[in-house]
């Protein structure tokens, strides 16, 4: 086990953070604009999101770099700023953490499909290497490969992330198939966990999906197929449109109600995905530490 991961887990489950995109939109990010661009144009707002998660109890916060790969930034006309956007993303989260939380930098999918020949393996691997190197250079404590639907793409991202020597978390989305427990490509949690373990990921997980409900089972199935710690970040269910805006019906309390089942199923890192907010993290914090003496935070560095 990576030394940092062992240290983090020495006092029980670790609270991670919630959604970033919806939080930035609440701060005025226009519809359809790439959030990563705000690392340069609205650093205070980006920092504000991170700060709110630290205040809510997150011991690991992520970075505003989910779409920070060349392929995605190209579509937004930002492909010449990959390094800059990623460096800045880590810097802003570090600044917000102020030594009270660890910063694990986010690496999301490219939006291109290998299977449909939209991109070659070499191009995709190079795009992830470029992003991972910039995130490491910026001083991230770890890297999180997340929201992956295609194992081949996830493996390329994990390889790129591992080349930095930082601990690597690898998460996929299981929201397809009859029981909403397979990836869009049809992979089961067991198959994914095994492949990601073989690829050398330090932590294996699942994020996004169809709300808290299905995650305990997915978590247990990941747990059964790997010796690595498990990372779980469910979304707040599917949104509904209320008065012309996307609204998530799940309340922080309902969401947090699933936390203990997750831990019982073997989750070591718990947080939220789309639709969750600092309120959700705070509610999770209370549930996870209900009735127990909250240990002092493990301070980075």
């Amino acid at each position, binding site marked *: 086990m990576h030394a940092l991961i062992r240290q983090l887990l020495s006092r029980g489950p670790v609270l991670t953070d919630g959604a970033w995109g919806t939080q930035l939109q609440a701060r005025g990010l226009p*519809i*359809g604009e790439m959030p990563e661009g705000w690392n340069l144009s609205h650093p205070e707002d980006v920092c504000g999101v991170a700060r709110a998660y630290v205040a809510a109890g997150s011991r690991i916060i992520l970075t505003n770099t989910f779409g920070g790969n060349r392929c995605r930034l190209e579509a937004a006309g930002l492909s010449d700023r990959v390094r800059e956007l990623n460096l800045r993303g880590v810097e802003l989260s570090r600044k917000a953490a102020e030594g009270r939380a660890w910063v694990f930098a986010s690496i999301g999918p490219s939006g291109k499909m290998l299977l*449909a020949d939209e991109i070659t393996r070499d191009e995709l691997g190079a795009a992830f290497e470029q992003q991972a190197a910039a995130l490491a250079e910026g001083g991230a404590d770890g890297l999180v490969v997340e929201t992956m639907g295609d194992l081949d793409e996830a493996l390329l991202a994990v390889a790129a992330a591992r080349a930095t020597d930082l601990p690597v978390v690898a998460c996929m989305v299981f929201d397809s198939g009859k029981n909403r427990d397979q990836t869009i490509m049809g992979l089961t949690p067991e198959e994914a966990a095994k492949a990601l373990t073989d690829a050398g990921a330090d932590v294996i997980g699942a994020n996004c999906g169809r709300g808290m409900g299905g995650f305990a089972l997915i978590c247990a199935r990941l747990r059964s197929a790997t010796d690595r710690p498990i990372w779980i970040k469910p979304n707040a269910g599917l949104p*509904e*449109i209320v008065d012309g805006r*996307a609204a998530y019906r799940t309340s922080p309390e309902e969401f947090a109600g699933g936390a203990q089942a997750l831990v019982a199923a073997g989750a070591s890192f718990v947080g939220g995905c789309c639709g969750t907010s600092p309120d959700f993290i705070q509610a999770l914090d209370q549930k996870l530490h209900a009735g127990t003496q909250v240990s002092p935070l493990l301070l980075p560095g």
Partner: protein
Amino acid sequence: MQDTNPLYEAILTGQAKEARAFTEQALASGMDPLTLVNGAMSPAMDEVGRRFERNEYFVPELLLSARAMKSALELIRPLLTARGAQPTGRVVIGTVKGDLHDIGKNLVAALLEGGGFEVIDLGVNVPPEKFVATVREKNAHVVALSALLTTTMLSMKTTIDAIQDAGIRAQVKVLVGGAPVTKKFADDIGADGYSENAAGAVALARETMAPAGCQKGSQIVAQSCPLP
């Protein structure tokens, strides 16, 4: 009459080379291209769609079958065009303004082509006026709108409003889809139809081309309509 089953099987199992080779040989031996389309290709893609909806097929199988279908269709389309045959229908497809995601849209486009539609793909981040202009210019029957984000799905409404304002709402059916889109949302914004997945979208597009009768109320629901 020569058996078209090998073509059906090749498409169903995603064997592009086999599908193309069989089509070449069948055409050379004088088989009517329409026999291939109606006897093997369309039924095969229908079955692919059914398997996808039953969660037996996933994205990879769907892509491979669509590719096999296309490789056969490339040989057949010029022959059909030469004899003046019309496509099943003309679809303008795109991811709405503000949204840069194209995987779902590309899957739907591939399946629609496989289903015999002429597909005009406008790409991602497509402004409403571009949809309007293309529908006019190409005299399209269907507009298919895609969005992945909860924030950009509202651009679907803007697009439908623009089509309405341009006075061409009556001439096209508007279909919507994408991860955050629900039947209720489709109703709310005045779309003609909604499908939960790519395979359903093809059935839905076909329904819109069929004479009325399968339409439930003002909306067309893919899942509740049998394939033609």
